[in-house]
């Protein structure tokens, strides 16, 4: 892809890269990284779709009142796959993530268009109840936000409100399992009745993950889960994500490109509300197709 193609407008899709080595330009670099308007992003390059999609999004548009936050994004998230969403601040990656369990519903004036399906069932269908949807699609937030209750109650809250466990013993088992899977059990087993807010930041975030997996969701959405944590806590969470991958489908938004590279199988790059590129993480981080992706992950915006 040459700078000319990009600047000439949106007409030429990015896949139309020259197939042979003969057409490669060696012109001096001039303006290719100045591509920052939405018109320059024609359509998503790479492979946004996959065969065994857990979540299937087609032509998603999100509006906040008059302004459009997401432009025509189509993306599949495969079963038991970790998909990382990266992009500069305000590129719509978090907004997109929050569409997946309808967390945007609570925002005044937010409108979501397009087909979003979870296992083929419409997420934004007229009869869809968000309560069971959010039980199936759990979420972990940027700031660790345990409830100001005991560690036990934090984890037990989901099973309680959804009526998953009927007996105390059953609940105990769920709590222990969730904490074990979140790698927190050994650290907190002796103080389950202590407030969850008394834990360290990394422990709190793992508590939030334990809380999310306590209702056995199918998908876990993570919105910059490590942005408030130190590198060691971050490494723990990343390790945890790696382990969780066996049983869950995970979509993670992150500002740390290294993190995206480490934890995900596929990476989606968003820019100004558009999905610029989706590819295998290896490809994105060694040889991205789109110049914008390249510029972003190599730190060339400015």
């Amino acid at each position: 892809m040459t700078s000319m193609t990009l600047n000439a407008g949106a007409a030429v899709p990015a896949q139309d890269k020259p197939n042979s080595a003969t057409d490669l330009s060696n012109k001096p670099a001039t303006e290719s990284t100045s591509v920052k308007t939405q018109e320059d992003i024609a359509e998503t390059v790479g492979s946004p779709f996959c065969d065994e999609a857990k979540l299937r999004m087609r032509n998603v548009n999100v509006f906040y009142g008059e302004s459009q936050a997401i432009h025509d994004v189509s993306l599949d998230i495969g079963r038991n796959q970790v998909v990382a969403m990266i992009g500069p601040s305000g590129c719509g990656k978090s907004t997109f993530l929050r569409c997946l369990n309808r967390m945007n519903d609570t925002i005044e004036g937010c409108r979501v268009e397009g087909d979003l399906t979870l296992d083929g069932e419409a997420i934004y269908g007229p009869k869809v109840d968000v309560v069971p949807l959010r039980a199936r699609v759990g979420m972990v937030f940027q700031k660790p936000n345990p409830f100001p209750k005991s560690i036990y109650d934090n984890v037990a809250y989901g099973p309680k409100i959804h009526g998953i466990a009927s007996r105390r013993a059953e609940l105990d088992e769920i709590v222990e399992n969730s904490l074990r899977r979140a790698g927190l059990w050994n650290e907190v087993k002796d103080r389950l009745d202590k407030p969850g807010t008394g834990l360290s930041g990394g422990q709190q975030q793992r508590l939030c993950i334990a809380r999310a997996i306590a209702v056995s969701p199918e998908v876990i959405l993570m919105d910059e889960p490590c942005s408030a944590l130190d590198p060691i806590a971050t490494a723990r969470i990343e390790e945890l994500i790696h382990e969780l991958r066996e049983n869950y489908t995970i979509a993670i938004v992150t500002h740390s490109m290294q993190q995206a590279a480490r934890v995900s199988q596929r990476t989606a790059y968003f820019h100004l509300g558009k999905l610029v590129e989706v590819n295998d993480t290896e490809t994105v981080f060694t040889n991205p197709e789109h110049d914008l992706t390249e510029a972003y992950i190599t730190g060339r915006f400015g």
Partner: protein
Amino acid sequence: MDMHFDQHISRQFNEDLESLKTEMLEMGGLVTRQVADAVEALANADSELAEKVLRVEEDIDRCEMEVDEHATLIIAKRQPAASDLRMVMSVIRIARDLERVGDEASKIAKMAIALTDEGSAPRGYTEIRHIANAVRKMLNDALDAYTRFDVKSAMATLAEDEQVDMDYRSAVREMVTYMMEDPRSISRVMNVLWTLRSLERIGDHAKNICEQVVYLVQGADIRHGNEQNLR
């Protein structure tokens, strides 16, 4: 694909990458000079020049270590990705190839000394000169293609290696004929053979450098005949 390593938000990063590349290219220049000098020493039976080649070899080794160290530092500090990562990786690989070319050049220089000691000009010098010119051009072109991120020229240079290999094989056949004709010349001709072998290896290393140009610019690994990876 345009390559530009001067547009990072971090100016320091720009400078680091730029100086890494420059270091490697300087090393390239040194190695090219070595090959030329070694062949020259052989052709003119100039043992002094050959000695010089052997001395400079140490500088080249030091260069390789420096390039390696700087590349390691960039990886540690900047965690480069995409084209930056490919840049660093290709520099490391090319530096290794260049170092080996340097080794071959010093081998040729040793042959030159050996052949000078034996006196009379043996047969096979024409072939050596022919192949030496070809691989020197390849090496120059490869480094040039790297400097300009020129995949086209790199691919062209890469193709030249086949010709060099063919020339080498025919030269070897010729040398074998000489040895059969005149068994007394075997030890001398063996030296010529080793030299030819070294030159052929230099051609291979030049080919490797071309492959790194493709890797750097296109991100495709076409080593070991995997040219289908080329986009």
